[in-house]
């Protein structure tokens, strides 16, 4: 009887917690969904087994949900990045802008849009999502995922629309950390930003 009661209570609290997690995720999704434009600076830190030391780069990010435009621009130490304009994808190399023709490139960019909007409905199809306060963890449902082992996203506790940090761990043990700062939500973005 004692064990039965413990089991019942255990199940009750687990279900209640899970229910709370789902409702929190839905609440976050609703707030994030309201973001129409976004602009931020970022630093990227790569911990690669290939290199003796981690490497760091800096850049900017601009996103317009309505026009489906995204600019991911590295500024230091090398200037490169990519630009998405609806179906079209360009690779930025210094002052050059080259179209990406491969289907793989398009698929990757489509995936980026899912992540930027934190489209939980889409992400749930491929990842097991766990919420811990303002920290969300994504573990691929595919056990032998070649690129991703785990992705952790930290949201700003004061404003969940703002992502402060993302960590992507790879099966090889390599990992990348992106830290976002000076993030502006729904700023007016001129067309020049995406030129």
């Amino acid at each position, binding site marked *: 009887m004692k064990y039965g009661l413990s089991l019942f209570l255990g199940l009750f609290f687990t279900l209640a917690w899970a229910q709370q997690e789902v409702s929190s995720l839905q609440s976050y999704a609703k707030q994030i969904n309201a973001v129409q434009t976004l602009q931020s600076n970022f630093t990227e830190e790569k911990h690669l087994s290939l*290199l003796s030391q981690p490497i760091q780069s800096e850049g900017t990010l601009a996103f317009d949900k309505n026009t489906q435009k995204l600019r991911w621009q590295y500024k230091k*130490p090398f200037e490169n990045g990519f630009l998405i304009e609806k179906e079209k994808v360009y690779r930025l190399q210094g002052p050059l802008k080259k179209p990406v023709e491969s289907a793989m490139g398009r698929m990757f960019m489509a995936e980026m849009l899912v992540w930027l909007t934190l489209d939980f409905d889409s992400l749930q199809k491929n990842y097991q999502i766990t919420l811990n306060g303002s920290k969300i963890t994504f573990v691929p449902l595919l056990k032998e995922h070649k690129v991703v082992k785990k992705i952790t996203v930290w949201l700003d506790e004061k404003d969940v629309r703002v992502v402060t940090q993302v960590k*992507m761990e*790879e099966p090889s043990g390599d990992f990348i950390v992106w830290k976002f700062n000076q993030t502006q939500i729904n700023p007016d973005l001129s067309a020049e930003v995406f030129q």
Partner: protein
Amino acid sequence: MSIWRRHGKLTGFVAFMLVGIVGVWCGSVEENILALVPQSIKQSVSLFEHSPLSQKLIVITQAPSQEQAQEIAESVREELSQAGFIKFPAQPTDNLVLNVLSALPGLFSPQIQQETEEKISLPVITRQIANYYEELFSFQSIFTVQKMAQDPFNLTEIVLNKWREIGQGVQSLNYTNGFLSNEHGNEVAALYDAATAVSDIKAAQKLQQFFTQRQATLPPGARTFFVGGMRYTLENVSLIKRDLFVVSVTGIICLLFIFICFFRTKRALLVYLLPLLVLPPAAWMTQLIFGHISGITLGFGSVVVGLSVDYAIYIYFALQQTKIEAKSAVSKISKHLWCNFLTSGMCFIALLFSSIEVFRQIAVFALIALSLAFFISVRVLPGYFRISAFSGMKTRQPEINSLPFRWAVWVSILLLAFGIWGITHLSVSADLNDLNSTSPAFVKDKQIAERLFPSNRGALLFALGKTPEEALVNNELVSLKVPHGLPLATLFVSAKTREGNWNRWKKFWDSSRQNAVQLSLQTAAQQKGFNTQAFAPFWTWLQNVSEISSFDFSAWYNPLVKISNTLYGVVNIVPNEVTYAQLADGKQTVFISGSALQTNLVRSVKKEAITVVCLALLLNLIAVWLLFRNVKETLLCFIPVLLGGSFLFGFLALCKIQLNLFGLIFLPLLIGLGLDYAIFQLIKYRSRQEEFMRLYPARALLAAGLSTLAGFGVLVCAKHAVLFMMGICALVGIGGTVLVSLFILPSLWKHGV
């Protein structure tokens, strides 16, 4: 017993007809472009048909916008795959780098060795490592880090560059988002491997059904369809089936009309029974001789209907019109029928010497059918017509008057002038597609495909051999004669070359070189902050690499084709240039371009046409001379042929009808068949006695001519270009010959002989 005696022969032929129907039903009816081309270019056409591209299914999508076209094309691809219509080649896997690298030792030719030496020189290593380092600061490095470790010298680039060289200089295709597209992107095409053989008619019909259903779901302005080998299969078979139906129905209606006009008796129905008795056995026996029968040969059945029915008509009218004793009348008219059979038969005998299989099939088919028709007409039918003849039906029918001599001469001159004008203005189509007939809708679809895949710049170079290995060896030998070699000869090597390459690889990567290169790499890598063990995967691979590649490149693209059990070929896609054309020896190496094929086809068909026509004319000239033993009459016999031919040429030019290659070779033959009517008239006027002249009433000739046109001329209703050409030549050419025989020839004969 007496019934059997009276109807035994007819019953026997009816039984033979039924056997023929069953035989044809159980046999195979095949449609193959190879049966329509001369022997001299058969190999080229056959090889062309075996090229990897000809086996592809090409799916084209049109939409108002680029996005829509892309979306529809992608969903159609998905649905085609799910429905099992297409299969995909092996996709590049995550181990692409290792797969490509594993192929390198077997492909390690002196040229690739030289390129590898450059890649492992210190300056190039330093530059490569610097590039990799810079790439690590980009987003895409997430996907390329593994590749860097496995291939620090970027050796895979050497192999992949060879792949890019395939078809280089041939076409400038616009490849966007996984599809070939036009400049606006709203017309896209994709090439797939069909899951079934392109000649599988059932699969082609199912595919057509799929596209019809899919089309119904598309938004306004959007369209999706397929072209390629399967569409040809579908078009040819569907078109011939449709043509056979339309031609048969129209022919029957026309014959019914002629029956009402000229016969109107129950006994006369036997006249039209004759073709039914002879066609099935003739088709069956042709099928037995060739192992199959072409739809075009069956289509030619209508010609045989027209010719064979003539014999019965002449017998019928002869017995109706004369007061001579029936046996004597039949004996007299039989000689004439024998002449007719001889002249028609000579034309078909001449056709037997053609190297075009369909012509030989037609010749055999017609000779058997006409022989049977001749026998039945003179041995079986008179018994039935005689009964009717003696029951008081011998009513005199009014004669048809010929033109006055002066008029006849003027009309002849005008017809000759019309013919000369026609020959100078006649347009001849040398397009191979005119033999591989298609509907107007398909012609439009092909034009769209041609816009996306311009074929005029490319050509195929086949290196042949009795075995796959022999073909590969030959391809390597041919490659040596090309300034920069053939890319396929580098990527698909023979076993002997592979062994040589492997030995070269082992010798190249001896321990001293490995140590030296490892040191260079380490130096360059450490300068950029790479770990000392960063490139260990490459060195591990180098130690364990084996002679046999772990990856089969033919899964991506297989240029090695099986043409027959004893013939294989490597198909190189090369620019349509003299450099490559000169490599061909016609036996081991064959160069095929659309333009060269066209030129050869025209040359071969012209040669065939001259041979067949000369032979037909010569044989007929001998036959007619032996018949009349008179030069003037022999030449007069050819007047309807000459004027009928002039009328035909003039008519074709006037109506701007393009004479296709099939028509070119068939045309004089048809005119040759027109000799029959001239012989009819000349025999009639040679008969001194009035009663014998009555054996040849002009109405008989008119009824026979119209019956031939009803059988033969109705082919103009056909959509298949070959059948249409036969029909138009018959309608105008034979029609002209009949008119000349009726209205001009008698005047010229009376004046000249």
